């Protein structure tokens, strides 16, 4: 009797241990969303989902049947003619999918590591960074042209600079690399900075790169002199991509601040404190700025930082809001509801839930 009791307790302990572990073994993240003129493409969990932009009705899923070995969180990227949807998976594979019907065109399986970042697409190239230091340059048929190895993981989309025929690659290893776009050779790299860079830099016509780091600093890096024109200290890590528009540089940080800077000198023009972490980039429209935070608040500010409206969701808002044809597409971090469509006044049009299927 006592033996049976001991065995039962032993099994119970095992179940307890494994159940405690299982919640953290499955990789999870926020949805990656891309829009064009007619569809919304969501990379989330084990599938890519295409939705009709107006109605939110589902068009296709890739793969059609769930495969437990595949998961997607990086926002897909469209080729210039919208002919291919390029998306990297946590199964180490880069996929090309037909955006119309969800059929696979090709896949590239050389990487040994996950694709966390959205690939950079130029007029004839795909630059796909991985979490395992490597960056792959491919043509539109999925043939590898070259690869480059950084010192650490790359979680941000690179930036292209046609004036030098190079691309700038931000890395978690605290460097930004300038790479020859034709050969993949290193041209130069920054000295080791104060923190990781996970946001895609903004770039102006003078060749100034604006980016933030986990070291609570925004840099304006002159790519010609390889020196900072200015730096700006933030209250917490800078995660989202800085956005340069109409003479303002907009940045966010994990303290929950939305800040407008003068890109010429780094002087603060205005700042709004939302008091909840912001990992997303601000969406800048012609007369308003849209940003969400961890607390689930979606804000609309005017271009002077005055709040126009706020809508609260029972979900974390950690991914960048997308915009097309007068509609806002807001990714949500919940179990089932993963995307909500709103008009510019914040009124809900439709919501997409995984529980529907």
């Amino acid at each position, binding site marked *: 009797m006592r033996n049976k009791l001991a065995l039962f307790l032993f099994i119970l302990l*095992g179940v307890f*241990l494994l159940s405690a572990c299982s919640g953290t073994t499955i990789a999870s993240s926020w949805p990656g969303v891309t829009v064009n003129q007619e569809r919304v493409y969501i990379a989330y969990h084990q599938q890519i989902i295409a939705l009709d932009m107006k109605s939110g009705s589902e068009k296709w899923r890739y793969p059609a049947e769930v495969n437990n070995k595949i998961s997607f969180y990086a926002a897909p990227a469209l080729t210039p003619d919208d002919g291919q949807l390029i998306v990297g998976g*946590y199964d180490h594979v880069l996929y090309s999918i037909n955006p119309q019907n969800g059929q696979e065109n090709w896949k590239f399986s050389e990487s040994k590591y996950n694709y*966390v970042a959205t690939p950079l697409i130029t007029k004839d190239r795909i630059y796909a960074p991985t979490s395992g230091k490597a960056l792959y340059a491919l043509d539109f048929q999925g043939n590898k042209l070259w690869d480059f190895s950084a010192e650490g993981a790359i979680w941000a989309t690179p930036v292209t600079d046609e004036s030098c025929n190079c691309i700038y690659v931000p890395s978690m290893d605290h460097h930004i690399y300038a790479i020859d776009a034709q050969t993949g050779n290193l041209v130069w790299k920054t000295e080791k900075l104060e*923190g990781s860079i996970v946001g895609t830099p903004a770039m102006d016509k003078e060749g100034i790169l604006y980016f933030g780091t986990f070291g609570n600093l925004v840099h304006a890096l002159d790519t010609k002199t390889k020196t900072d024109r200015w730096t700006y200290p933030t209250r917490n890590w800078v995660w989202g991509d800085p956005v340069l528009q109409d003479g303002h540089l907009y940045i966010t940080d994990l303290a929950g601040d939305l800040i407008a800077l003068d890109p010429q000198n780094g002087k603060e023009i205005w700042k709004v404190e939302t008091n909840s972490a912001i990992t997303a980039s601000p969406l800048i429209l012609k007369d308003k700025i849209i940003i969400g935070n961890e607390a689930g608040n979606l804000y609309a500010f005017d271009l002077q930082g005055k709040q126009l409206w706020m809508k609260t969701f029972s979900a974390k808002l950690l991914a960048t809001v997308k915009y097309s044809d007068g509609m806002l597409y807001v990714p949500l971090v919940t179990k089932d509801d993963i995307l909500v469509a709103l008009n510019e006044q914040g009124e809900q049009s439709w919501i997409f839930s995984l529980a529907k299927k």
Partner: protein
Amino acid sequence: MWDQFIINPMVNVLLYIYSLIGNFGIAIIIFTILIRLLTHPLTASQMKSSQGLQELQKSKEWQEIQKKYKDDKQKLSQEQMRLYQEKGINPFGSCLPTLIQFPIIIGLYQAIIRALAVTPLQLFDFSKHIYPFINAAKIIPLNNHFLWMDLSQPERLYLFGFGVPVLAIIVVITTYLQTKLMTPSTQPGDQSAQMTQMMNLYMPLFIGYIAYTLASGLALYFVTSNVVGILQYGAMGKVNWRNLIPARSKPSEKSTGKTK
């Protein structure tokens, strides 16, 4: 509560050690040794209890009730429990050192997985658990490679194209050695001894399975903990080497329970 009192302190101690040495594998090893030192009073107390059990089982009174109630298992159990209570002995004592590890194992596993965040959401969540005195910006991303292992993934050493779970095998061996060396010699027919023997057999396999399937950082913890445990018991003079040789652990021979 669990996060606040178990996971967060573990994560931050691990990070602090990592910030000093820059190697997550060595940080886990040092952290495990620290945990072993902190739980040393529990270990010593348990050892004392086990020794009491061993002495009780050799006593005349114990032998007599074994003979007297050999055909009445229920009565035998009652009498054994009476003796345990009289002598203030916990018959489950030999399982305790392993069972005590469970909350630590769960906490460490979650600490390792959080620290080696592989997705943006995991890293974001992790950033909120870091204490202000840790310069997180400087040490992130953590170097999760140690020897041939990626500490965030199950370990396999690829030899001639085959993935061999070397660390899981070492975990099974060291767990078996530890449980055998720490268990006092027992009397045949004793039900608690049978239970202990069963635990000694299944526990290494169970821990080995965990090491085989989960992050190798956890397997590194198991190996270190087992080796340190054996050394710890050895230093206290409590290692029972006779248990490794089945023929010599028979009750007809007088086991001293001392380190040779």
